[in-house]
């Protein structure tokens, strides 16, 4: 799923047209919206649950709910945030149903001094298998809420205001949590950037 800013105006208009058709019950239009957004919804849920099978189930549930509530979407340009918001609720309900109330992610280190971090080089941009595994591990050490907020920004490209809506947070909290998530992630990955062998 791309942020609205990343999309061409024609693409956005195309999506609005699809949405209008889907709202009248056109299955082909809903299918097109599903195929466009389901991968990002699944990824968001996979990152929330850290469980692919749970993400499968929750993705389907998200789109079942979206299908039933399409006409309640007010701002057609916020389809991504709306879907991710539904996904977030599905995740929270599933977690509650499983009796998981505490985030048992790894310990967190706060108060990181950013100045100690190396500066990434362009070569670091290449995400090879090893680095991708390290990234997944590093994300796993960020507690779930914070991680979700960060990913809504850096993976799903949502503006801070929309992240606030999805997470049910104030704007200052969104900014603070994302900033902390970034620092935690960087601290974990610092040894692997800036002149890796």
């Amino acid at each position: 799923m791309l942020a609205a800013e990343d999309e061409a105006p024609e693409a956005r208009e195309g999506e609005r047209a699809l949405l209008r058709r889907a709202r009248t019950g056109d299955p082909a239009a809903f299918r097109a919206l599903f195929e466009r957004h389901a991968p990002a919804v699944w990824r968001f849920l996979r990152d929330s649950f850290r469980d692919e099978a749970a993400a499968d189930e929750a993705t389907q549930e998200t789109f079942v709910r979206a299908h039933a509530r399409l006409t309640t979407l007010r701002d057609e340009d916020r389809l991504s945030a709306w879907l991710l918001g539904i996904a977030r609720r599905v995740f929270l309900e599933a977690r509650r149903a499983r009796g998981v109330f505490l985030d048992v992610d790894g310990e967190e280190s706060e108060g990181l001094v950013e100045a100690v971090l190396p500066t990434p080089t362009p070569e670091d941009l290449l995400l090879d298998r090893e680095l991708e595994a390290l990234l997944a591990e590093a994300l796993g050490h960020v507690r779930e809420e914070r991680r979700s907020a960060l990913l809504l920004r850096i993976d799903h490209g949502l503006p801070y205001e929309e992240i606030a809506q999805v997470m049910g947070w104030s704007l200052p909290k969104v900014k603070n949590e994302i900033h902390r998530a970034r620092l935690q992630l960087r601290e974990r990955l610092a040894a692997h950037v800036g002149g890796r062998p």
Partner: protein
Amino acid sequence: MSFSCREQELDALLAGELSPADAERVRAHAQGCAACAHALAWLRLERGWMAQRARRMPARPALDFSALEARLASAGARPTPAPGAAPHRAARIASPRSQWSHRGVMAMGAAAAVAFIVFGVGQVRPVSSPEVPWSQEVLVSGMLQACVDPSGEAVAALEDRFSACLIASPALPEY
């Protein structure tokens, strides 16, 4: 708006969320500020990694529409028509809510089961065709056509070298 090395503004710059005037101001500042250059390098790295990660989505049964279709059909679902909207002829019948939390097994279409192939990390599929399972190695894929947004000469040069799109941020001048 004053600027004092705020990462959030650098982030907004990379996301293309700033007005042209603000973007120019932040960019000009970052050119001469080591702290902002450092932060920008990390922000660009995060975006680049996330873009590559997103392209390596495994093919999952839940991403096959036929699986959802089976579920919608079994739930008899269809959207409540908007006021004044003419219902589509092919539409199905309405259902207010699914029974997600009580369902142990996802309703899967046969096609979804057939299409369920597990792909390893390091494979990729083009962004432009998300429904096609990716099967090419990341660095030798035909992803170049999906690359529209190298965010700087250094990144573009690296992408040329690997014939792969490494970052998905909007095109930005080098700084």
